[in-house]
């Protein structure tokens, strides 16, 4: 949202001033909602939910690559948020803190739903899920093409890619979250990029015009 406002600032000055003042108002409202939610106000908590749940759902969806799980875990995130909101001390932006809460909930969900062989011996990577029809490209027109391809990445590569490229975490942070070496996080990220490039190319993502221009 901030980046959108910044983009507006560069284009139209008059509108930018308006947007900036709107942002202050929105921040003030959010602070008020947080304060009231901390005191147990469900209506204030609903305002926070309304403002943030789409972003959190996007995070859940990208990490889990499954609509039903993403919806369930998104709900779980807000239940955990309700319980832990008093721990938010305003040292970071609320959205940043909320994303870290959500990331932990998603990772906890993934841990709970793994079998022991995978957990102990870190067996996961059978390669991208290209062969399995159940995880083939979805027809969901609401998803971007890249999101559809992200969903087909192997789990570790997908998690690292989403956390690094989309959520903006550093590899050091990701290595702690996923209990892997920093080098592994980096290599999974490069692996994810290569797999995405391959699958995008294979699915004729590059337009014919672009190919013609290149030729």
């Amino acid at each position: 949202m901030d980046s959108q406002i910044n983009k507006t600032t560069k284009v139209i000055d008059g509108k930018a001033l308006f947007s900036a003042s709107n942002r202050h108002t929105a921040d003030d409202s959010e602070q008020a909602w947080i304060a009231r939610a901390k005191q147990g106000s469900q209506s204030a908590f609903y305002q926070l939910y309304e403002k943030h749940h789409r972003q959190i759902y996007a995070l859940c969806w990208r990490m889990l690559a499954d609509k039903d799980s993403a919806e369930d875990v998104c709900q779980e995130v807000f239940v955990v948020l309700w319980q832990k909101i008093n721990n938010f001390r305003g040292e970071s932006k609320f959205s940043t803190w909320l994303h870290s809460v959500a990331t932990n909930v998603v990772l906890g969900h993934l841990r709970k739903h793994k079998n022991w062989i995978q957990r102990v011996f870190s067996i996961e990577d059978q390669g991208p899920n290209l062969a399995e029809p159940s995880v083939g490209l979805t027809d969901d027109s609401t998803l971007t093409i890249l999101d559809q391809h992200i969903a087909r990445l192997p789990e570790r590569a997908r998690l690292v890619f989403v956390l690094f490229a989309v959520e903006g975490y550093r590899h050091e942070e990701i290595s702690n979250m996923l209990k892997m070496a920093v080098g592994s996080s980096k290599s999974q990220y490069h692996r994810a990029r290569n797999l995405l490039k391959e699958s995008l190319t294979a699915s004729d993502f590059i337009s014919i015009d672009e190919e013609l221009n290149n030729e």
Partner: protein
Amino acid sequence: MSKHISQEKLALNNDVSEKVLAEQIAQLPNEMTPERDLWSGIERAINDKSQEIPTQKKSNVFVPSAWAASIAMVMLVSWFTFSPSINEKNKPGLVKVQKESPITQRQLVDFMQKNFQQQKKTLLVSYGQPTVDKLPPAMQKELKQLADARSSIRKALLTDENNADLLNLLDFTQQQELKLLQQLYRQYQVI
């Protein structure tokens, strides 16, 4: 010649897809809208759950386990330091009262040990025979401390007959070790 051209085309294609990928990442939407209404479920759940009081300390799921291990160690150290039976045993010429058959106690210790090993084996089987070296070093240390404590108590029991307190301590240590193992393998589920 045609092979050379196709390789060039492939390289160009790779470059393009790298660029396209970067653009696509930048254009990923921040938001997605869930199909179903999630709020009603959240509302029901939060009606049943109270909010946590803020804590100064950083929460750590292993604190209870660590405390259990520490308590066991403290009890063991205290025992060896202050136990009258061990101190008395070293005094020459001291007549022991109520001396029971050492075979009975040894049998009991052996039985406890076998029982403990069986429980541990069952526990590990239920978690798919994980190896300890997959756990973080701090947790491996906790486990080793408990195992060392258990071993020391067992050795002490073989030379110190008729010692109900030491037997209880052995039982307590074994149970703590099992509990810690269970907690660790539940919590440290490697992704």
